[in-house]
């Protein structure tokens, strides 16, 4: 093969003193990096194919393998980074669009890390969550302007009819990841964990596999521009329905599941022919205004007999506050806002890395706008896009979110090593693939347990942080920006976030 200008990104280092040529790496690498040469009784590596997923290093029984990130050592050019140069080489080779997956891979600021949480000292008592009740229960859905009680009976009762609510054991849900983009066992792990935890998973826009209908009460189902797998029964099976307008990783563009991933099972779930590309148009072709959105929201409300909340998910873009206001006025019970660090199975890298705004600002702006218009109670706000840990979640709640969606963190719990090659369909961890040789690698029993463990740990941490602030319920944390201070931000940024600087 003629030499290519693009240089390998990884070096596969095999310790000859430890390698026993057992071939585990050969059998596990879907990128065919490793190969066994019986004539020399040795295993060799073609590093140029390595994507840095670390599957081989994890399973090597003697620890003989190290995968070292070796970005090209072009002469340092400041403006012209090695990545920028490599991207030009790649496109000059292929003539195609640079593809990316998972979230924004650029070293952009993480505003969560500029926010600090409060704790009680002396004048207001902190609460020990191991001794005192600490409430993480969260209800999502439209709340009434006021509540009237019926006091005439022996016990007071609620006279106001409440809109349908989703009851979550904690303010964390699994974000939309479709069957097709991720594997059957990955979907099953998420659904099982959501049911066990008392929270919700999200089907994404790929329909709901018949095996997962039993998990319906623990699922939100999506209606997106492709309308894949949408039937009355599909809408009826779930706890809530989400209209997906946009996604943080790729605002303004549609989706494209390559035909190679559409096997018999995905085909039946999505209701499209085997092997055909599943194309989600960029816009919903029946939504060109807030009025059109209202029609779809109320069509879906009719379809579910007004028994389930309807969510609308948008990407965080420049006018997000005004858009969210329109969505609430259109009748949505939940508004989900996906920041520009949100993940995806495939997106043009230029869009993933350059379109949209950070969730921290979008969330603060939306919460402010809805409050100032007096409609904050009409919809719950769900934030998503790059939540890494429980502290990020607490900060989001304090900025104004009712709950958050986590996607990338959940996949990492399942084994994802963030190699960002989901679009190749060769996920060595059995997550973002439909190859039957690879999907077997994810045992949903193990996956669900790991997700359960992750969120149990986060729930403990959230209770500790809330207790430290002297708060005993997430209801009291939501939008409580007095518990946030920021460092290293400009006055303008502080104003938009609506929080004070450290020391103030």
């Amino acid at each position, binding site marked *: 093969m003629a030499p290519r200008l693009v240089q390998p990104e990884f070096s596969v280092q095999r310790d000859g*003193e*430890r390698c*026993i*040529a*057992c*071939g*585990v790496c050969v*059998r*596990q690498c879907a990128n065919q990096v490793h190969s066994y040469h019986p004539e020399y009784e040795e295993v060799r590596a073609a590093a140029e194919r390595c994507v840095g997923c670390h599957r081989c290093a994890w*399973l090597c*029984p*003697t620890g003989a393998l190290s995968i070292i990130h070796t970005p090209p050592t072009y002469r340092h050019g400041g403006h012209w980074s090695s990545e920028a140069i490599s991207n030009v080489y790649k496109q000059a080779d292929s003539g195609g669009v640079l593809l990316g997956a998972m979230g924004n891979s650029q070293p952009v600021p993480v505003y969560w890390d500029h926010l600090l949480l409060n704790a009680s000292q002396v004048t207001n008592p902190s609460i020990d969550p191991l001794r005192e009740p600490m409430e993480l229960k969260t209800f999502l859905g439209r709340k009434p302007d006021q509540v009237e009680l019926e006091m005439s009976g022996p016990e007071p009762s609620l006279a106001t009819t409440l809109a349908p609510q989703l009851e979550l054991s904690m303010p964390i849900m699994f974000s939309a990841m479709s069957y097709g983009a991720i594997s059957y066992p990955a979907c099953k792990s998420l659904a099982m964990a959501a049911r066990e935890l008392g929270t919700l998973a999200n089907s994404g826009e790929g329909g709901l596999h018949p095996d997962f209908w039993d998990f319906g009460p623990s699922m939100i189902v999506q209606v997106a521009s492709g309308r894949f797998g949408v039937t009355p029964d599909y809408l009826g099976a779930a706890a809530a329905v989400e209209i997906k307008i946009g996604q943080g990783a790729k605002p303004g563009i549609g989706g494209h599941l390559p035909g190679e991933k559409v096997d018999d099972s995905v085909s039946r779930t999505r209701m499209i022919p085997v092997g055909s590309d599943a194309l989600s148009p960029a816009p919903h072709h029946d939504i060109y205004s807030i009025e059109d959105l209202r029609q779809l929201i109320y069509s879906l409300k009719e379809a579910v007999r007004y028994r389930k909340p309807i969510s609308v998910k948008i990407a965080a873009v420049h006018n997000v506050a005004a858009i969210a206001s329109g969505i609430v006025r259109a009748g949505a019970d939940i508004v989900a806002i996906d920041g520009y660090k949100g993940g995806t199975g495939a997106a043009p890298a230029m869009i993933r890395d350059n379109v949209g705004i950070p969730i921290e600002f979008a969330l603060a702006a939306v919460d402010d706008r809805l409050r100032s218009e007096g409609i904050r109670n009409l919809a719950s706000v769900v934030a998503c896009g790059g939540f890494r840990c429980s502290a990020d979640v607490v900060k989001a709640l304090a900025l104004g979110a009712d709950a958050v969606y986590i996607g990338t963190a959940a996949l990492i719990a399942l084994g994802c090593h963030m190699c960002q090659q989901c679009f190749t369909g060769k996920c060595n961890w*059995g997550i973002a693939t439909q*190859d*039957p*040789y690879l999907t*077997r*690698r*994810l*045992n949903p*029993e*193990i996956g669900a347990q790991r997700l359960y463990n992750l969120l149990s740990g986060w729930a403990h941490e959230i209770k500790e942080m809330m207790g430290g602030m002297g708060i005993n319920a997430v209801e009291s944390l939501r939008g409580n920006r007095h518990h946030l201070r920021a460092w290293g931000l400009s006055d303008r940024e502080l104003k938009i976030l609506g929080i004070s600087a450290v020391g103030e």
Partner: protein
Amino acid sequence: MKIIQAIAQYCMNCRLCEINCMVAHSSSRDIITAFRAERERLTSRVTVEQSGPRTFPVQCRFCQDAPCAVACMTGAITQDPATGWVAHDPDKCVGCWMCVMVCPNGAMARDVGGHVTSKCDLCAALDQPACVAGCPNGALVLAERDEVENA
């Protein structure tokens, strides 16, 4: 008695079970030493069978009325009628391979180096079989034989 249950849908063809089996039955019990110094003498008692993308591990299922014990002409393979345990004594084995022929699971391995058969002993000397302990995906589990047969 408890036997090893193979859950085929979770077998991912890493074959760490084979490697761990060989190490557990080596004299050094050290993976690098075993593969360097004893490789010719090591036979895995578990074999991962493959058909296209589907793979599954096969080892002794400790059948009731084990055909291998019936077929063995030297008394090297015996079955305890009370527990169902199938034992193999390599000192009595003459390598006639009759057990290999009759095993319905293909679980008898030919130890070519010693010209005897070798079969799974559930790693009696360890807390749990090495293949079960080392399976990264829960494809091998210990389970009561009745549960496995009724599954």
